[in-house]
Structure formats: C-alpha cells, structure tokens
C-alpha cells in the first residue's frame, strides 16, 4: 500500500532552534514543517499526513506535556519526540508513560534526534498500514448481509454448520451457502484466515 511521504513537525518557541533542527533533518532528506506553539500546529497542520512531532516541553500557552495529552484525547496518534532544556526525571517519566518515542535534553546529539525521528516515522507508518488494513476488513465486513454476518460470527466462535443451522432455524446446506458467500466477500482463503480477520476487527484501533 502506498503512503504519502512522511513529514516531521517541529514545535519550539525558539526560532533558532526550530531552524537548526530543520536544517539538520532536511540534510537527510526529510520534509520538515516548523511551528512556534501548539496552537500554530493545530491550525496549520496539513490534513492527516504520516509523520512525527518534535515537541519542546516549554512552550508559550499550552506546555508540551499538556499538548501530548490533548492530542491523545483528540485521537491524533502522531508519535512524539520531546526536546527540553531542563528535563527532569518526573517530567521524562510522564512523557514516556504517555507514549512518547524519546525525551531529549537540549542541546542533544544530532544522531540521537535523527534516530528518534526514524523510529517515530517507522512507527507511524506501521500504524497507518495497520489501520488501513483494518479499515479494508471493516469495509468488507460491512458488505455482508445480516444473515451472513450472523453465520460468520457463529462459525468463527467454533460452532459446526449443523449447530449454526439449528440455532438460526434453517438447513445445514443454507448455512454452507451463507458461509462460502461470506468468505468470498471477506476475501478469506480459509476458515483460519476468516477467524484472524474477525479477531483483528475486534481489536481496539490504536493497539500496536
């Protein structure tokens, strides 16, 4: 599946730092966009593009840590790399627990930032891939008729065709027809394949 090119968003109130990071990241061929505050980022962010966020802790208005929480609440699942001039242990713990990729203390080693950005972009890519797949599966599942869905749910839970037929008050042959048509619509190669697909659909969307 093809994705648009990744982009690194840098949010730091210090223009020098922003520019320096841009120069560094562009030197390895990454697209970079700069913002002076969390608000600017929310307003100016291009619609859902794969990428990651390099976020300063100390920002005018909403702080980096609060912004991390706000993003999570808004279900914006962008990987975050924190940079801070005075990171302490509690702050770091809070950031990492909330799912940050890395916490770098200014001034940081260039390689540390580049590595963290690579990890973050890779993670975002993987997540997007997963989400796209699940979206496809859901689309296919949605295309099933109500009776087909019923049959699929029972079969996946381990019931035999005969039992399923008894349960929904029809013949075994009718169940077989529903089942094969459902597998065709879901593009499942085998029963095991179908079980896996239904399991993935049940999973919470943000889990890895």
């Amino acid at each position: 599946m093809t994705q648009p090119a990744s982009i690194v968003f840098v949010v730091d109130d210090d223009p020098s730092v922003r520019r320096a990071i841009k120069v560094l990241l562009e030197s390895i061929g990454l697209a970079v966009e700069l913002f002076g505050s969390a608000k600017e980022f929310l307003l100016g962010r291009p619609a859902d593009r794969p990428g990651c966020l390099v976020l300063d802790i100390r920002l005018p208005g909403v702080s980096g840590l609060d912004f991390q929480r706000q993003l999570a609440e808004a279900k914006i699942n962008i990987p975050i790399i924190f940079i801070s001039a005075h990171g302490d242990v509690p702050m770091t713990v809070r950031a990492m627990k909330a799912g940050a990729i890395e916490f770098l203390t200014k001034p940081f080693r260039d390689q540390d930032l580049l590595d963290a950005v690579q990890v973050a972009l890779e993670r975002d890519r993987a997540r997007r891939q997963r989400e796209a797949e699940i979206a496809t599966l859901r689309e296919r599942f949605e295309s099933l008729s109500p009776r087909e869905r019923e049959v699929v749910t029972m079969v996946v839970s381990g019931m035999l065709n005969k039992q399923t037929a008894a349960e929904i008050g029809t013949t075994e042959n009718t169940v077989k027809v529903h089942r094969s048509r459902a597998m065709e619509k879901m593009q499942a190669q085998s029963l095991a394949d179908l079980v896996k697909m239904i399991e993935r659909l049940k999973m919470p969307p943000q889990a890895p």
Partner: protein
Amino acid sequence: MISANAVIPGSYDYLQVFLSVVIAISASYAALELAGQVTAAGGWARSVWLTGGAVAMGIGIWSMHFTGMLAFHLPVPVGYDWPTVLLSLLAAIISSVFALYVASRQKMGLVRALTCGAILGAGIAGVHYIGMAAMRLGAVCRFNPLLVTLSLGLAIAFSVFAFLLTFDLREETKGTPLRKIASAAVMGAAISGMHYTGMASVSFIPSTATPHISHTVSVSVLDSAGISTVTLIVLGVAILTSAVNRRFAAQALELQTLNEELERRVTERTRQHTAVNEELRKEILERQRANASLLEAQADLAHVTRALAMGELVAAIAHEVNQPLTAIVTYGSFCLRQLAGEAPNLQKLQEVIGEIVNDGTRASAVISRIRALLMKGTPERVELDINEIIQETVILMRHEVNRNRISLRTDLAPDLPRILGDSVQLQQVLINLITNSIDAMRTIADRPRELLIRSGKNPDGVLIQVRDSGRGLDPEQADRIFAPFFTTKPQGIGMGLSISRSIIESHGGRLWAEPGPNGALVQFTLPTNGTNVS
C-alpha cells in the same frame, strides 16, 4: 502547877479555823495561778514570778498553819518563839519555791509527781511541826505517832495531788476559773485536813518545866487577824497580778495572733504578687523567645526566598542560554555532516555558520540582559554620605550578622567628602560584600568571626574596606571571583561580585580583593563629588 499527867484540853476558835481554811484555799488558788505564770514566763520574768510567787505562796502556807494553830485555844498562856516561827515561814517559802519550780517544768510523770510530792509534803509537814515547835507554854507536847504519820501521809498525798492538778491546770487555755476555784477548794480542804490531823496528833501534858521564853512573843487575837489579813492581801495581790498579767498575756497573745494573721496575709499576698510577677516574667521571656524565633523565621524565609529566586534565575538562565546553544550545536552537527559528505553545500554551510555566529551573540546577550536585570533599573546620581549608607546597610544586615555570631565593627572616618551615586546600588554592593563575608565565616570555628567595615579618604576619593576572618582567598581566586558565574559557594550563581564591580565601575570607582589565608579584604573606591563620575 497543874497535874503532870492530865492532858490539857484544847478548844478551837471556829472563826479562825474558817479563816485558816480560806487562807488555805486562797493559797492553793494562788499556787495554781502562779504555777501557770511561772510556766508561761521565760528568762528573768520567770525568776521574778518564781520568787514572788513562792514568797506569796509560802506566806499563804505558813499563815494557814499559824492561823490554824492560833485557832487552837489552850487554857494556858501560849507564847511563840519568833525565830522558830520565822524558820517555819522560811521552810514554807522554800517549799513553795520547790513546788512552783517543779510544777512549772515541762514534764510531769507519776514518778516525778510522787517524788516531788514526797519532798513537798515533807516540807509542809516541816512547816507545820516547826510552827508547833515554836509554841512556848507550860506543857509538854505528846505526839500520837499514828496521827503524825497520817498527817505526813496526807501532806504527801495532797502534794502529789496538787502537782498533778496544777500541772494539768497551769495552761491558760485549759480550765475555766470555776474549775480552778474548785481545784483550789479541794486543795485547801486537803491542806486543812492535813493541818488539823497534825493538830490532833498532839496532846499537851502540863509540865512544871519553865518554858524557854527568851524570844517568845505572845499572839493576840488581833495579831492573828492582822496576820490573816496581810496574808490574804499578799495572796490577793499575787492572784490579781497574775490575773492582770494573764490578761495582758492574753492580749499579747491576741495581738500576736493578729500579727501572725497579718503576717500570714502579707506573706500570702506577697506570694501571690511574686507568682504574678513570675508569670509576667515568664510571659515576657516567652514573648522574647517568640520574637526571636519570628525574626529567625523571617531570616530563614528571606534565605529560602533568595534561594528560590536564585534557583529560578538559574533555571531561566539555563533555558535562555540553552536555546541558542542547542541551535549552535545542531547547526554545528549539520556542518560536520556536510563537510564529511562528498559534495558539501558551501552556500548552505556559509548560511548555517552565520546562524551559529548569531546564536553565539544571542547567548552572550542573554548574560548581559540578566546582569542588567540584576542591577535593577537606571542608576541615579545624587550627593551621598557614604558613611550613612554603610550605617544603613549595617542595620539591615545586623540580624543576619548576629545570627551567625559574628562581631561586626565599623571604623568610619568623620568628615568624608560626599560622593555622587545611587544609594540603592551602593547598598546593594555593600550587602553583597557583607553577605559574602558572612558566608565565608559560616564554617569558621577556630577563630573569632570578625567583620570590619572601614571608610576613609583616598587619593581617588573615598575608600571603603570590608574585611572578614573567613576562609580567605587564594591569590589566583582574587581576580577570578569578579568573573560572571564564578562562585565558591555551593548555592551561589557567581553574579554578585561581578555585578558589584559593574556598579562600582559605573560610579567611576574600582572594586578589588586582596587575597589572604585568614580572611578576605574586599575594597572599593568612589570618586568624590564632581570628579570622575561617569
């Protein structure tokens, strides 16, 4: 003359018998009364009471006997040998002295009462029989041994009884006058009983022998009445004196009781006042302590505030300086990457290095800005007396100085020329120097912590010196301490002396330190009014 073997019949004059009993009772009463006085008195008064009382009582005893004897009438003329009569009187007085002395002792046991009673009884019997021996008449005395013994026994019994009674009654508080009178009546009756038993023990046998009459006097009824009267008067005076004395004693006692009460009240009151005073003193102390701890708390708070402010300042500086540093490091990394690559983008490098220079300049500007911030506003220039500023600063710092047990001395030259300057800034410099001295002496324990602030004239104007006995300065430190961010204190940020030097230099003066192992000397000059002021 009269037949030899017939007993001369005697008769009693009952009036005189009655008189003798009255005398006996009076004497007994006097004895009871006097015993109390002798007991109560002390020192010479005791001797006076003992002597006077014994004389009165002795006269009473003797008079009772003599009256009793005179009450006995014989049909023959009876004369009395007066030396013997005097002897019997003497015996009576001696017995009385003994009796009063014994009765006024602290303790009276049964054994003592018996012993002394025997002696006194013998004395009284002596008085009686000596008195009888004074009789001169033409007859021989025959004594009935049984009755003589009985009379002696009665005398002793009466004495023992008298002692016990007297001892019991002598206390002022005990015994009503009525009881005393009753006791006296019993005693008087006993005495009389003894006497008349004695009288009954003798019988007079007419004798032809001429009585020895060389010192004999005859006693008429009138004489007898006189003796009785005098005796009663003596006894009356004794009793009256005793009563008066007792009244006085009672009053004195009352007075004493009142005095004691008063004294007790005064003591009580004094105690209350003392307690209140004590309470007040405690409260004052408490308040002083509270005040001291309040001051200490304020000082601590000031410390904490300063430390917090310093911490925040440090954080601010760290952040402010870190931003350009981060940019510089990141740009630098980019440059290295470019230069390590095959075709470095020189134009980009040039651009980025320009950014590095800009950010370096910016970092330096941050430091300057902080220094300016710490110097607080634009300095003003007014005419000042530097000694006044020193004194004001010393007052401000006094608590901190005392808290660290530092002795602060000022040696300020009079009539210093006035200077032009900013009093707040100069005070800031002095506070900074004094604070440094305090910090340097905090750990000094092996020598006195001394701080000396001097002012004086100097070719450049005035010279102010701050000298302490603290850790001192290495020669190499002496100049570095003025560099920004150089500090020897664990909590220091290294701005104080740097700012102080800027302030003094902006006043046209110089600030420098002299190294030394036993304390530092930091001093500054200030130009006098009108010269060199920038």
